[in-house]
């Protein structure tokens, strides 16, 4: 009788232990399955969200050209359909990767694709991550990061060593492969250093084709000193629907001051041309500095040449002064409602010349933008990609999405 009781106790103990062990085994499998299911749902959500952003112009549909708050987040060009994005709406996205600049009580975003080209949009008139999350209805549930990256990289390199002639090489590549045999259209902007009070520039254009390795050496500019003169080169590359743009800006090393274009209003298309020393927090200590500037606007034509648009307004050229009681340290100009490139040429009192470029419309100079939160440290980040165009330039839109409601990571 006693042995039966012992047998009963031992068997019951073994049975309970075995049950607990197997519950552990099964629950681990189930947890893994549930986690996979959630990740799969997250992937579907990412795809839906990305399409929602790219196939809707947002509310109001012209928010990219307005200073008002948004009611809905979307980047599609309101005048077109499919994956064709507005040139202006992405300009209003607060970059999550670049530090802002400060000017006159306002912080500005700081987008660039290299020296000499800047896009500074005021934070107070831009769209930030939390606002976008809120209007998309994912605030508190999902985090995201949206990247718009040009599909085509047009890399321009100065290959002449010193003095004249000036020569460039151009390398064109896509995200997956180099772009061999692609058409190239280039425009060389050379400042006329002729002593004019407000410096102008001349445009030299040409076309060529990349070789099988996606490279080409442009014809030399024989009368241009590559070091002492100020110039810019804008290169468009296109092949079978893929279009890219790159730029190169050079100013003499002796030039110590520059101008900074800052967007004042998207709605009025007004740009502040500010003196470099007045930008920053705090600004440079006052020491009088004058810059004579001249502004113009260029748009890209259908044959990939640049057409100059005169800015017929009193402030299109003038002088900005920093550190003096009488002069203004900025000037305000208005640009047309086309997307294009604002070109500001300038010179200082010692006749040192320079120029800066500012895209009006993100695609005009193929600026990349990264918008949203930081996926680093998140449990599981899912990614989706679409091919889009911004102002006719090919981009890849990538959305990284993660869940911030705190479910457990995959247990393997």
């Amino acid at each position, binding site marked *: 009788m006693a042995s039966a009781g012992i047998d009963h106790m031992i068997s019951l103990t073994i049975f309970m232990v075995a049950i607990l062990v*197997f519950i552990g*085994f099964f629950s681990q499998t189930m947890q893994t399955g549930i986690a996979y299911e959630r990740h799969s749902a997250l992937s579907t959500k990412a795809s839906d969200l990305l399409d929602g952003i790219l196939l809707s112009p947002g509310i109001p549909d012209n928010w990219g050209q307005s200073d008002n708050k948004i009611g809905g987040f979307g980047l599609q060009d309101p005048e077109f359909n499919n994956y064709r994005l507005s040139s202006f709406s992405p300009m209003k996205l607060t970059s999550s990767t670049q530090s802002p600049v400060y000017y006159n009580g306002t912080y500005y975003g700081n987008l660039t694709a290299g020296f000499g080209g800047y896009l500074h949009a005021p934070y107070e008139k831009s769209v930030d991550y939390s606002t976008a999350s809120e209007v998309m209805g994912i605030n508190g549930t999902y985090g995201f990061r949206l990247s718009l990256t040009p599909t085509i990289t047009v890399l321009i390199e100065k290959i002449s060593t010193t003095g004249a002639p000036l020569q460039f090489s151009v390398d064109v590549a896509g995200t997956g492969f180099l772009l061999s045999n692609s058409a190239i259209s280039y425009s060389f902007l050379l400042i006329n250093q002729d002593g004019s009070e407000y410096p102008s520039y001349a445009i030299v254009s040409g076309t060529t084709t990349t070789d099988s390795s996606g490279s080409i050496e442009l014809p030399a500019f024989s009368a241009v000193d590559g070091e002492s003169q100020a110039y810019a080169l804008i290169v468009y590359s296109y092949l079978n629907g893929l279009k890219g743009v790159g730029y190169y800006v050079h100013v003499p090393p002796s030039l110590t001051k520059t101008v900074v274009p800052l967007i004042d209003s998207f709605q009025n298309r007004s740009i502040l041309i500010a003196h470099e020393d007045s930008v920053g927090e705090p600004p440079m200590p006052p020491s009088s500095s004058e810059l004579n500037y001249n502004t113009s606007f260029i748009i890209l034509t259908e044959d990939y040449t640049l057409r100059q648009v005169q800015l017929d307004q009193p402030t299109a050229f003038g002088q900005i002064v920093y550190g003096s009681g009488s002069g203004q340290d900025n000037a305000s100009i208005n640009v047309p409602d086309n997307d294009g490139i604002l070109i500001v040429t300038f010179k200082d009192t010692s006749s040192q010349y320079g120029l800066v470029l500012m895209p009006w419309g993100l695609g005009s100079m193929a600026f990349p933008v990264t918008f949203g939160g930081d996926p680093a440290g998140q449990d599981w980040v899912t990614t989706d990609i679409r091919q889009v165009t911004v102002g006719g330039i090919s981009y*890849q839109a990538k959305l990284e999405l993660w869940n911030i409601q705190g479910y457990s990571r995959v247990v393997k």
Partner: protein
Amino acid sequence: MIRTVEVLFVILILGGAFIATSYFTVLPPPREVSPINLGRLSFTTLQMLDSSYDLSKAAFETDNSVTANSSWGGVQVALAASLPPNVIYNLTVYDVNDGEGEIYDYVHSISNAQSLGIASDASTYAVASSNVTFNVTPEKIGEGSNGGTLYILNCSDANGWWITGYTAQSLAQDLYNLLSPYFVNTVMVQNKNQLAQILNGSSLRGETLQNAVLINTFGEAVPIPTSYANQYSSDYARYPYLLGQKTRTYNWTWASIVGYPLYYVSNTGYFTGANDHNGWGIFGMKQIAGSGINAFLQGLDSQIYQNNPAGVTSSVGVVTFTTQTIGYCNYYGVYPASYQTSTRALSNALQQSYHLTIAFNIFNPVGNYNPGAIYNHVVAGSGNITGSLLALGLTRTPDVRVTGLGLLSYYHPRIYPSEYTAKGTSRIVVLQLGLAGGS
């Protein structure tokens, strides 16, 4: 002891169950759990490749060799450049077959891998040959019902006013070209006798009078047949009264293309006196001023005639299309300027006085005035439409496309695109994408 053995059996069973479950519960690798949506990536890639119609050009290329300078060579380079490095592709073109057998015929294919890896997806994209023109077939207004006649006043024996720079005949021809595809019958009324004939209830060539549309291309003037000029010589405003009555009788839509409707009556054979001009050097007409539209509306509303010269319009300045009108611009492919200037917008007060309702606003109203609209006359208490008026109170000179657009917007006939799948005109491009690498 036996219970312990039994428990061991239970453990064996549970272990077997766990092993069996683990065997059948095959969880996918992480890259398959949360993949890139290759279908959408494929579709957007095809759209991009065809953004300048280069993909369409390559799909119809007779030379399918993939060389550096060939169309397919360009497609291959662009595909490889635009896709992420770990994505492999297979692009295939099929011809659309409208005959017996297979629906699609294989044409050409390019790929950068022998297989498409562990996961793949595809999308299709239809491309059209560049040397094919697609036509549309419009639905006929009045088709299958009693109506569908468009009368365009093209009388050679009358003069127009506020059509400066044009003649009524040239405007009539433009309207004919624009609108005749949408009507069962389009009749050019060539002279005043023909106008008198239809006013007397006789068709000109067997067309249906009932529910017809009459467009007066003479601007602020209206041709008056000699018989009516004689009959109404003491008060020419009685003629628009008659027009209103006929509009009501036959349920016509009377269209005034510009300015003040029915402001003059014109007959170059009848008004031949030295004073028979409009005061601006155009002879062969008599001014009846505001009495014209008031008389027309009296006739339309079956009111007793009373010569009423009171003004019913206002100059409201720049006016804009309604959103519905803009939508119809796109639908019918007619694009007059959406901003126009209106100096003869009709007052809202007319609606109550003459039992009118606005059937379609071509322009956005300005205050109490309508720069351009189609009015229905609705008999009080019945709900039946008995005549309509299209009044465009725009300043000279007229853009007859606005008249055409107004009528199309009101009747909104459908347009049917031609077949897209005719052999040789369309091809299907299938882009299949896969992720490189094993599981």
